[in-house]
């Protein structure tokens, strides 16, 4: 059965708080679900914008640690 992912799941994924197996499932779901992928992009963009307030060094260290492949 295909799992349905929510915005809360996307947030857990963006913040690296999702177990690896579930993250893979979410990535696969996004490949087949355009709406889910768009929602992910929108949330990711909002989260990334928050980094604007961080000093350069702290922002780049986050990007290195939390960017998704």
């Amino acid at each position, binding site marked *: 059965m295909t799992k349905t992912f929510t915005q809360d799941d996307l947030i857990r994924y963006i913040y690296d708080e999702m177990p690896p197996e579930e993250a893979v499932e979410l990535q696969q779901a996004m490949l087949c679900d355009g709406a889910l992928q768009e929602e992910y992009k929108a949330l*990711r963009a909002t989260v990334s914008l928050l980094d604007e307030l961080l000093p350069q060094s702290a922002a780049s260290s986050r990007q290195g640690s939390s960017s*998704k492949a």
Partner: protein
Amino acid sequence: MENALSDCQLVKQFLQGNEEVFEVLVARHQPRIFTAIHLIVKDRYIAEDLTQEVFIKAIGTLRSGRYNDEGKFKPWIMRIAHNLAIDHFRREKRYPTIVLEDGTNVFNTMDFAEAPYEIIQAQKDTKAKLRALIQELPDAQKEVLIMRHYMEMSFQDIADATGVSINTALGRMRYALLNLRKKLKKHHIAYDQNIYPR
């Protein structure tokens, strides 16, 4: 100051008497702590003082031998920062808030809620606007957003620190991001979904 040692290793060295290593911990965590406190107290100079106080308090606890965080220095010091900032904020605040289930302050929904004065007055600078929009978020949503994004606390740590369930913390973060997204659009602050890495 670059240093490849982990926080845990640095704390261990500090506890063994090499107090100079604390400078590395300060350099590593000060930017985020300052940014988070600044967002809470909204005053740069108070934020600088409180950031300094965070590290003084941390040193005091380390020296007294009361430190026992099982290797989690960052959540521990972020919690000190959050508590100090909130204590300060509460001391300064002169009106009560009623927080609804979704983290919305009930007064935000009333007609006499303040106009977004900060927005109007904000410089035409993305950072200033963004900071002002974050300040407009209901307190509970703003709190979770600052703790998760700027203090890098996990949702579980946030839930423990604020006395709510992890689902509530996550839900408040969701409302915070969705509200912020709406405000960004409303104020025409550019955020290109395609320029940020996945």
